[in-house]
Structures are given as C-alpha cells and as structure tokens.
C-alpha cells in the first residue's frame, strides 16, 4: 500500500513509539528473569558460597529467546487473521499464547538451572518462582504485542514483502540484541555490583560477588527490575525506537535514492559525534586511574 508523506510519517512515528515501549519492556523482562550476560554472575555466586534469591532463567541468549517468542506470536496472529479475526484481537491473542509458552520455558529454565547447582546448596525458592514468573509472562506479553504490531503495520499497511511471523522473528532477534547490549549493562555493571568502588570498571576479583541485600530485606528480581526501570530499560527503548525510526525515515522522505543513503550517513556521523561528546564528558568526570609516566618524571 502506498501512503502519502503525512500518513507515512504518522505510521513511522507510531512504529517508533511502539518500538520504544518494546525495547524498554524487553530489557526489564530480561532483568526480572535475569537473562543474558549478567546472569553469568547470578550463576557464579552460589559457586563462591553466596546463596541468593534472584530468579535465574537464561532460556538462551536474549535475541534467540525473544525471536522465538515473537515468531510464535506472529504465527498465531497470522492464523487468526486468516480466520478473519479483527487485527487487534488477533495480535492480542497471538501475544498471549507466545507469553504463556515463554512462561513455561522460564519456569523450566529456572528449575533446571537451580537443580544443576545442588552441589553448591543453592535452594529453589518456590515463592520466588510463584511471584516472579507471572511478571516475566506479563513483560513478555507486552514485548510480543508491540513486536507483532510493528510486523503487522509493516506487512499490512506498508506492504513489506516478508510475512508477519518472519518480520516478528527479525524484530525479536533485534530487540534481544539491543536489550542484551544496552540495558543489561545497567543490570550487570551497576545493579549486581553496587558494592564496587564508584567511577571505575568492575575488578575481575569481584566476579560472582553480587549484592544480595536489598534496600529492605533480601534482594530479589523484582527489586532489580525496579532499579533498572529507571535507566537501563528506557535507554534500551530509545535505542530500538531510534533504530526503527531512523532506518526508515530517510527513505520515507527522500524515496529510494542515493540522497536517502547520504542522509543515513549524516545520521551516523551525528551519532558518532554524540558518542564522542559523552566520552569527553565522562573522561573529565572519572579517571585517569594511572599517572602518566612522562608527567611523573617531569614532576620529579
């Protein structure tokens, strides 16, 4: 379907907004369930004699588990659309089925992982499983709903040549890759190790020594998602929103031309400059940690 410029921009803006929500919630889902790279520390802690009450699922890498979940949502939606269901109903039901299956995987992954740590005396807390799993399912439902909605818009309104399940799979993989690269750093680098010295990286000697006490009582995964929702989640949402918006914006305005590609290069240059500005700012705030040899000699 070919839309005029105003409608194209409106659709693109909606897609960007939906993607921002999807990115944010995906990261929070990976924090509440403890998945991807930071989970290596949750897994390591009992081996260091530090037992904890953190959920430990890690079904697989985030891109694969989210891709798998989104493709199920996309498939069910596609079937229901073929059965003449109203699109919104079809997407909601598709996301619901996908989230339930994801919940089953989360439960088995948690039980399996903790069972493998019997020799380190890590208990399987049934209350943790009972109140954290519904939260994982709830988060995943929102992610699937958003990703399948984007795929539906791309397929049915914008006329992309790829099918809804395939588009959902690609966006699931991408949202997982972004969540794993952006938001997980806030969970792994900051929340798990609030006991490290502020203003420097995590010393390897601290590996596995995660913080186990919460603001009140013992820390659990819901405490973690509360913290990560302040920065890690929104930053991930912004990254996916920017990706969805800026990967289509140049071609929407300038058509399929080399001019659009040139605009893409300008966007990339602006992002590089922004990263450099952050680098300069943060270097002024923290470090240097070692004195320059030449400066040391000059001072002597």
């Amino acid at each position, binding site marked *: 379907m070919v839309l005029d410029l105003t409608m194209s921009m409106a659709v693109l803006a909606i897609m960007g907004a939906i993607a921002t929500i999807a990115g944010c919630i995906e990261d929070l889902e990976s924090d509440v369930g403890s998945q991807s790279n930071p989970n290596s520390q949750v897994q390591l802690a009992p081996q260091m004699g530090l037992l904890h009450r953190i959920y430990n699922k890690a079904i697989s*890498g985030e891109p694969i588990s989210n891709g798998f979940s989104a493709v199920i949502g996309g498939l069910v939606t596609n079937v229901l659309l073929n059965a003449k269901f109203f699109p919104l109903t079809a997407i909601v039901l598709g996301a619901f089925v996908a989230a339930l299956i994801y919940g089953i995987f989360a439960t088995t992954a948690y039980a399996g992982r903790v069972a493998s740590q019997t020799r380190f005396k890590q208990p399987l807390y049934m209350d943790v499983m009972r109140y954290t799993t519904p939260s994982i399912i709830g988060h995943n439902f929102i992610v699937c709903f958003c990703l399948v909605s984007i795929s539906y818009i791309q397929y049915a309104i914008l006329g992309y040549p790829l099918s809804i399940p395939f588009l959902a799979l690609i966006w699931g993989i991408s949202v997982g890759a972004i969540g794993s690269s952006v938001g997980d750093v806030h969970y792994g680098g900051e929340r798990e190790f609030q006991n490290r010295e502020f203003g420097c990286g995590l010393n390897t000697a601290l590996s596995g020594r995660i913080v186990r006490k919460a603001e009140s009582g013992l820390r659990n995964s819901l405490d973690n998602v509360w913290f990560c929702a302040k920065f*890690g989640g929104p930053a991930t949402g912004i990254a996916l929103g*920017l990706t969805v918006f800026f990967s289509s914006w140049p071609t929407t305005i300038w058509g399929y031309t080399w001019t659009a590609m040139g605009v893409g290069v300008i966007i990339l240059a602006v992002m590089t400059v922004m990263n450099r500005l952050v680098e300069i700012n943060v270097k002024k705030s923290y470090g240097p940690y070692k004195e320059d040899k030449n400066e040391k000699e000059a001072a002597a």
Partner: protein
Amino acid sequence: MVVFATTTLIDILLIGLSGTLICLAVHFIPVGGAPAAMAQATGIGTGTVELAAGSGLVGLITSSYMYAYEPKAAMLLVMAAGAMGAAIMLASTMLAGGLIYAYGVAVPFASAQVKKDPITGERQDNYVSKGTQGQGIPTICFVSGVVGAALGGAGGGLIYFVLMQYYTPLIAGSAAAVAGVFTMGVFYVNSVIPSYGVGGTIEGVHDPKFRRVVPKDVFTSVIVSMLCGVVAILIAGGMV
C-alpha cells in the same frame, strides 16, 4: 531443474562474496561479550552472533523493502539500503549503551588494546581501571562498529538481491520469504565462524587480534559461503 550456466556460477560467487563480507564485518564490531556487560572489558556487552545477526537482519528489512518498491534498483543501491539499516541499528545501540556506561555504571571509555585512540589521539591506558580490560565504547570502537555493521548489512542486501533475481521467475509469490530465510541462515553461519577466531571478544579494527584472525576466518568463510551458494541454487531445483 538446476542449470549451471555462467550466470548461476556468478550468483554462487556473489553469495560467497556476500558471506565473506558478513564474516569480515563481524571482526570490525567491538564485541565485549559477558565481561563488557559488567564493565570489565571494552566494547558492546553481548556476543558476536547476537550483534552481527541483530544488526544485519535490520539491514535485511530495509534492503528487502527497497527491492520490493524499486524493482529496477541497482544492486549497489539495495546493498547501500542494507548497510544503512544495519549501521543505524548498531550506532543506536552503541550510543545508548555508551550512555549507560557513562551515566549508569559511571566508567570512562578506554581501550585496553592501544595506548592512544587512532582517531582522537587521546590516551587510553591511563583510563583503564584496575582489574579490567578497558571499559565502554571509545571513538575508534564506535567508528569500527559502524563500518562493520555497514559491511554486514551490505553483504545481507547482496545475498537477498542475488536470490531474489534467481527465485522470482520460479516462485514469484514466496520468493521473498525463501530469500529472506536463506539470507538469515547465511548471516548466522558467517557470524559463528569469527566467534571461534576472536574467542568471544574483539575491540575492532585496531585490536591486534584483528590482523591475526581475519585471514583465516575470511578464507574459511569464502569456502563455507560458496557452499551455501551452491545449496541456494540446488534448492531451486524443487521450485519448478
């Protein structure tokens, strides 16, 4: 029936070339793996396959749309569309990730592989904190990552273009689906090959590991991607 004409051989060669581009691209991306997620190493805090496939597949979406609406689009333009989509995905990821490193974890960006950043000329070793292999995404890593993602996206766009040219006369209705799935497969194959070479982490083009492993990985990728190309042509035998 599959006929191995000269054009077919060129198609196989082009798929081999695009697979090699993807494999090469992975080496440019600053992959920090699990240590980077804990601010213990420089780069993006996830694995090679996740990043390369994640960014490349966004490139696949942009290039497929370009191909669908500009049937006369030149091969280079489809590749450029793929490159742009993938590079924007990775740049957005690195920018947002950098914000977390800077204002969430509070670490200065520093490379542990070079004394000075080749682009900005700024000292790096002084900013590597104790017990780590660098932190964050310095400018050289950012630029290297953008270039890598663009190469990967261009490679994905090229495979899609070649396969669409080949499959469309045979199965016009579902050519995009088959070409898309096959492109995704080639992406994963060529993202896994460098994982063995780089051993999970690489900072980018300035990392000494880059020069050490690229020739071997690229050689492996050429062979494997050509094999993928042969399979892509063989499966077309069942489409008539």
